[in-house]
C-alpha cells in the first residue's frame, strides 16, 4: 500500500493550481502595488502556509461557530441576560469597546480584501481572503451585541455616525485609515504583526476575562468565537514578518521602521484599554501595569529576542511604554473625566475601595500623583460642582489623542513636542508620534483632527450643545457622570423590580 499523504501534501493537492501564469497581461500590471514600498520578494513559493485550511473546511468551521454564537446571543436576549451583569456601570466599558472597535474590524475587513488582491502569491492571497471574511463576521456579531444592549442602555444608538465624528473615536478610526492607506506590505505588518500579534492579547485577554468576571456572557461568547480566528490571524502575522525578512536583506530596515511605527501607534491606541481595565470594570481582572508586564515585556521580549536573529531590534521607544505603565491609565481616565460631557459613555470617580485597589497596584504613582486630584474632584462634585473642562484640548497630530501624557521624570509636566512643516507648526504627545509624522509629513498634515475641525466651524457650531447635536449624542442621556445617568436610574429600578419578584 502506498504511504498515506501527510497533511502538507494533502493540502497542496487541494489548493494547487489556484495560482496560474497570466498570459494576457504582465504580472506587473496585475499586481501594480507590489514594488513601491521597496520590499523585495525573490520567491513567493517560499511562503509557508501557516495554517493549512481549505476554503471548503473554512466555511464548515465558520458556519458552526456562527450557529453556536447566535444561540448564546439569542438566549442572552430572551433571558434578559443584561440583568445578570455585575452593574450597569460595566456597560460603559462595552460602549467604548463596541463603538470603538466594531468599525475598526470593518476597516480590517476592507484592508485584508485589498491586500489579498495586491499580493501575487497564492498562499498570501488565500490567508488574506479568509481573514477578510473573519473580520466581517466579527463586525456582524458585535453589531448584534450592540443591537441588544441598545434596547436597554444609552450611547449605542448611532455608532456608525459617531465613528466618523466623535473626538475619541477618531483615535481607532485614524489608526486603521493610516494602515489602509499604506501599501500592502505595511498594512499587513501593521495589522497582522504589530496589532494582532504583539498587541491583541492585551485587547482580548483582559477584556474577555473582564467580561466573564462581570457576568457578560454575550461578550464572552463573542470573544471565544473570535479568539479561534485570532490564533490564525496571529500566526499569519508571524509568517508575514519571517517571509519578508528572509526574502531579502534590504527588507530588514524597512520592516524595522514599520515595526517601530506600528508598535507606537498600537500602544497609544491601547491607552483606551488601559483605562477600561483599571477604571471601568466593576470587578477587575488585572491592572494595566500587570498586563503590560506579562503580555509585552515578557511575551513580547521573548519574541524580539528571536527576531534579533534577523537583525530586528525591540521597537523604538519601547522603554517609554515601560516607564509609562505606572501612569497611562490614570492620565487617560482623568482626561475622559474632564471631558465626560462630550463622550457617548459615562465617567465617574473611583470609590474608596477602588482607590485602595489602584493604590495597591500602583504603589509608585497612584497615591502621590492621582489620588489627590480625584479627592479634589470628588469634593467639588459633593459641593454641587462636578468638574467638566470647558475648553477643548490640543490633539496629537499623529495619534489624535489629546496631549495629556506627561514627562515621566516630572508627571506634572505634559510632554509637548512640535515640528514645523511648510511653515505650519504641528504638535505631538510623544517622540514616537513626532518621529512617525516626520517620516511621512505629507500623510499626517491631512489628518482630520476633531478639535481643530470644531474650531474651524465644521462640526455644527461653536458651542458644546451644537457639537453634541452634530455628533448625534443626546446631551443628558448619553454623556456626563454615571451617578446622575438614566442608565443608573433604570438599573436600580430593574434590580428593585426583580428583587420584589423574587421575594413575592
Amino acid at each position, binding site marked *: 500500500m502506498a504511504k*498515506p499523504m*501527510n*497533511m*502538507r501534501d494533502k493540502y497542496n493537492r487541494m489548493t494547487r493550481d489556484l495560482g496560474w501564469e497570466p498570459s494576457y497581461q504582465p504580472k506587473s500590471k496585475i499586481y501594480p502595488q507590489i514594488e513601491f514600498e521597496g520590499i523585495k520578494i525573490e520567491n513567493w513559493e517560499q511562503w509557508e502556509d501557516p495554517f*493549512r485550511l481549505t476554503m471548503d473546511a473554512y466555511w*464548515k*468551521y465558520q458556519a*458552526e*461557530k456562527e450557529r*453556536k454564537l447566535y444561540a448564546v446571543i439569542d438566549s442572552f436576549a430572551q433571558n434578559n441576560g443584561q440583568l445578570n451583569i455585575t452593574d450597569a456601570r460595566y456597560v460603559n466599558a462595552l460602549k467604548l469597546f463596541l463603538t470603538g472597535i466594531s468599525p475598526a474590524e470593518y476597516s480590517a475587513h476592507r484592508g485584508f480584501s485589498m491586500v489579498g488582491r495586491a499580493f501575487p502569491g497564492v498562499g498570501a492571497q488565500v490567508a488574506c481572503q479568509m481573514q477578510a471574511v473573519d473580520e466581517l463576521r466579527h463586525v456582524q456579531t458585535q453589531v448584534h451585541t450592540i443591537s441588544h444592549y441598545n434596547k436597554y442602555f444609552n450611547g449605542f444608538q448611532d455608532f456608525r455616525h459617531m465613528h466618523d465624528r466623535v473626538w475619541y473615536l477618531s483615535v481607532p478610526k485614524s489608526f486603521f485609515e493610516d494602515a489602509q492607506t499604506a501599501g500592502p506590505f505595511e498594512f499587513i505588518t501593521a495589522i497582522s504583526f504589530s496589532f494582532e500579534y504583539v498587541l491583541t492579547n492585551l485587547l482580548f485577554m483582559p477584556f474577555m476575562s473582564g467580561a466573564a468576571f462581570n457576568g457578560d456572557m454575550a461578550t464572552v461568547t463573542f470573544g*471565544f*468565537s473570535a*479568539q*479561534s480566528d*485570532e*490564533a490564525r490571524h*496571529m*500566526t499569519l502575522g*508571524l509568517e508575514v514578518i*519571517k517571509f519578508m525578512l*528572509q526574502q531579502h*536583506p534590504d527588507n530588514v530596515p524597512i520592516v524595522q521602521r514599520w515595526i517601530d511605527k506600528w508598535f507606537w501607534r498600537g500602544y497609544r491606541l491601547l491607552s483606551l484599554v488601559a483605562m477600561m481595565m483599571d477604571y471601568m470594570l466593576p470587578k477587575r481582572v488585572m491592572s494595566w501595569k500587570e498586563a503590560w508586564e506579562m503580555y509585552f515585556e*515578557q*511575551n513580547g521580549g*521573548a*519574541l524580539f*529576542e*528571536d*527576531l*534579533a*536573529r*534577523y*537583525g530586528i531590534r525591540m521597537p523604538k521607544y519601547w522603554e517609554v511604554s515601560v516607564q509609562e505603565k505606572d501612569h497611562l491609565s490614570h492620565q487617560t481616565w482623568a482626561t475622559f473625566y474632564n471631558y465626560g460631557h462630550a463622550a457617548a459613555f459615562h465617567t465617574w470617580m473611583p470609590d474608596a475601595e477602588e482607590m485602595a485597589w489602584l493604590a495597591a497596584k500602583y504603589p509608585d504613582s497612584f497615591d502621590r500623583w492621582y489620588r489627590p486630584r480625584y479627592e479634589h474632584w470628588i469634593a467639588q462634585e459633593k459641593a454641587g460642582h462636578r468638574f467638566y473642562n470647558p475648553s477643548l484640548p490640543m490633539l496629537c497630530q499623529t495619534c489624535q489623542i489629546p496631549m495629556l501624557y506627561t514627562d515621566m521624570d516630572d508627571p506634572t509636566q505634559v510632554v509637548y513636542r512640535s515640528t514645523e512643516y511648510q511653515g505650519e507648526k504641528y504638535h505631538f504627545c510623544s517622540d514616537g508620534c513626532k518621529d512617525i509624522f516626520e517620516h511621512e509629513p505629507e500623510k499626517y498634515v491631512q489628518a482630520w483632527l476633531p478639535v481643530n475641525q470644531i474650531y474651524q466651524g465644521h462640526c455644527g457650531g461653536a458651542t458644546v450643545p451644537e457639537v453634541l447635536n452634530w455628533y448625534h449624542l443626546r446631551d443628558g442621556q448619553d454623556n456626563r457622570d454615571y451617578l446622575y445617568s438614566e442608565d443608573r436610574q433604570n438599573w436600580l429600578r430593574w434590580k428593585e423590580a426583580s428583587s420584589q419578584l423574587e421575594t413575592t
Partner: protein
Amino acid sequence: MSYQLTIEPLGQTIEVEEGQNLLDAALRAGIWLPHACCHGLCATCKVQITDGEVDLGEASPFALMDFERDENKCLACCATPLSDVTIEADIDDDPDAEIHPVQDFTGTVVKLVDLTPTAKGVFIELDGDGLCFQAGHYINLHLPDIAQPRAFSLANSPSQPRLIELNIRRVPGGEATGYIHDRLQVGDRLELAGPYGRFFVRHSAPESLLFLAGGTGLSSPKSMILDRLEQGDTRPIVLVYGARHRAELYYHELFQDLAARYPNFSYVPALSEPEAGDAWEGATGFVHEVAKAHFDNDFRGHKAYLCGPPVMIDACITTLMQGRLFERDIYMEKFISAADAAQTARKSPLFRSI
C-alpha cells in the same frame, strides 16, 4: 498507569502518564507538535485520532467543533488518553529519517581513551547483533547505582553496529560523568537502550553539508560525516569544530586525514583561547565567528547541522540567519529536559524547530 501514544506520520511511540495531556507528553519526548495557547482555545494543536480513545478535556466548543468531535479530532493540549492512542499530527515526515525500534542492550567496555583532559572516549562492545541506528541518534546509558539513565550521542559510524563509541565530558560535580571518568573500568558490563532522537542528515536534499560543532558536541557530526563519506557522498562537506585550546581539540588528526583523503571534505578547526605552547596556526575565535569568516557571511545553499553547548548553538543560529540561511535549512541536536520545558514560557512561537 501510563499509555502508549503513537504519533503519525513519524511512526514514533512514546509513553503518556496518567492525566498527562498528549501535547505535554510529545514535547517532553522531544517531538514538536504545533501549539500556541496550551489551554484549549486556539485550536493550533488539533490532531486526528486514528486509533484509541481520549478524554477531550476542556477543549472550547469554538476551537473543537462538534463535527470535528464526530470526526475523532482532539486538541492535543487538553486531551488525555483513555487507552493506547494513535494520532496523526500536522507535522512533516521526512523521507530521510530512519525509524529503528528502541531496544535494550548489554555490552562490555572494551576501551577507555582520554580524548582530552576533560573528555573520555568510551568504547562498548554490544552482545548480539548490535545496535541499528542512524547517524545522529543517541542512547540512554544505565550506570550502576544511578537511578536515571543518561543520554549520550553515538560517535561511531552506523556501519559499526556492535562496537559503539561515546564521547563523555566530565560535568563538574556530575554524578554520572564523574562515575564514568573515575570508576568505569575496561571489562565492566553496562546496560543501555536506544536508538533515540530525530537528528539526522537530510541526505536527499541537494544542498551542501555544513557541520558546526563545539566540545563533545563532536559525537554526532563525527558519526554523520563518517557515514556520508562511507556512503560515497560527493557534495561539499565542511566541519567547523571549535574548542578552547589545543589540548581540548580531539580527533584533530582523524579529520585532517579525512580531509586529505576526500577532496569534498573540508576541516576548519578553531580555538577560542589558544595557549602559548599550542603553536596554533589555524583559525582563532568561536565557532560562529570562524564559520562566518570562512564562508564570507554567506551560508546560502547549505544544510547546517549544529551540535554543542546551548550558547554556541544560539550564536551559530544568529550567525547563520544573518548569513541568509534560515530555519528550514538548520538542524540541531535537541534534548528537552524538564528544565528546558519549564523555560518554554520565555520562548516565542516565531521558530518551530530551532
